[in-house]
């Protein structure tokens, strides 16, 4: 399942620009590893794995768009930021991208720096900043959390898409002339739609988790010093 829009393939952006972004992504990921090591406890380790698996599965849903062969898919940066925090969250998205590039040929290996910068770094960072802001402003209700999740997911998708436009402007291998504006417009419009889908999935998931196991939501944990954690098992269900 190749997507041009978010998973940049080999040869779309030229070498020097790719190298600069690879270095940038590496530095940010190193910081995430340093900060994330502190976060990754017994509760977060399985959650990080599940978030990564969930994002991996969700990225298989593709929205092909006929104009100029651009397509896009869900990203999961906001979900990761909400559930496991910005540091581990960025690492989760990055791991998904690395495995997809290495094993499934989805996104070029030489373009990993660009892809990680867009989706793992910019996407997650934008989402987390918005989450931190909105959770302070909005009421502490499921609805407030849902709105936070929806908005941050939507914005993070558009930010990641704009990251690609900037990179294409810096080092696209083909000069589109005046069509760059068109590319930006297509990408923004398409990803606004994808963002709505992503926002709905993120909000549903996070609100359900927060209702049953609030202790699992990192963003809520950071706000309230001690969240009483009634470990309610899900009723019924096959074990």
């Amino acid at each position, binding site marked *: 399942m190749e*997507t041009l829009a978010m998973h940049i393939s080999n040869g779309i952006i030229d070498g020097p620009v790719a190298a600069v972004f690879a270095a940038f992504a590496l530095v940010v990921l190193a910081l995430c590893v340093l900060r994330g090591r502190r976060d990754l406890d017994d509760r977060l380790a399985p959650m990080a794995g599940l978030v990564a698996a969930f994002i991996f*599965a969700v990225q298989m849903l593709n929205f092909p768009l006929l104009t100029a062969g651009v397509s896009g898919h869900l990203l999961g940066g906001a979900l990761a930021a909400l559930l496991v925090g910005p540091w581990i969250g960025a690492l989760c998205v990055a791991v998904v991208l690395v*495995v997809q590039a290495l094993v499934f040929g989805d996104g070029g290996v030489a373009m990993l720096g660009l892809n990680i910068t867009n989706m793992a770094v910019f996407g997650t960072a934008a989402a987390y900043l918005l989450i931190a802001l909105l959770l302070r402003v909005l009421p502490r209700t499921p609805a407030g959390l849902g709105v936070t999740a929806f908005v941050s997911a939507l914005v993070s998708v558009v930010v990641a898409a704009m990251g690609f436009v900037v990179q294409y402007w810096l080092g696209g291998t083909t000069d589109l002339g005046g069509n760059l504006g068109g590319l930006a417009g297509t990408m923004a419009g398409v990803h606004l739609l994808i963002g709505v889908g992503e926002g709905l999935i993120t909000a549903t998931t996070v609100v359900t988790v927060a209702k049953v196991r609030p202790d699992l939501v990192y963003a809520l944990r950071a706000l309230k010093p001690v969240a009483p954690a009634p470990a309610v098992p*899900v009723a019924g*269900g096959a074990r």
Partner: protein
Amino acid sequence: MGAGHAHVLYRESASPVHRLPPEVKLAAMVLFTLAVVATPRAAFWAFGGYALLVAAVATLARVGPGWLLSRAAIELPFVLFAFALPFLGAGERVEVAGVALSVDGLLGGWNIVAKGTLGVLASLLLAATTTTRDLIVGLDRLRCPQVVTQIATFMLRYLDVLVGEARRMRVARISRGDDPRFLWQLRGFAAGVGSLFLRAFERGERVYLAMLSRGYSGRMPAVWQGAGAATAGQWLAGAAVPLVAVAIAATAVVLT
């Protein structure tokens, strides 16, 4: 369950490529891709050379061309973008079959198709000859931080948990009278996505606790490592392909 099992793309075999340690294959594949991407797009002969290298490795690994090509179809959407470029590109135009096409766009489209295809084929060859477990062992031996290999391990492990849980929920829906057809299947799925996540987490948490109680400490036990790390000879054997690719790329850069 989980990462110990092969993934869908793995092709069971005992070829020399399968037997190479994973860290060698990973390093070779990344180096090969970098060499391909660094090649000037007008050096057409160089891409022929790379294709021969890929074919040689595929033969050694006993991976058939039909399998490779059908799996490479994942890159089709971005090939569409490549075909749009001759029409969108700016600058000098050339007349082809009565249509004015951008020269830069044509070269750009070729660039994307050639480099993208070679990259996809290289990663397919890696996937066909390496289990996911070996992949993580390889990343670990290449000094990938433990936080990252840990997330990767759990991701691959929990993919099966997630798929299994989704299947159980679907069976539960159907056995309670839900009879979804075509696109309406999505409705039930979307409504249950939150509880799917929660159920998968609770199951995953138990998997994690079971691992902890069996001595898991954030790194896979030594048994997992299988045959030891790569020897100098194996590194040399694995370096053959990327070194040829680097030589081709260097020649192409000098010539153009």
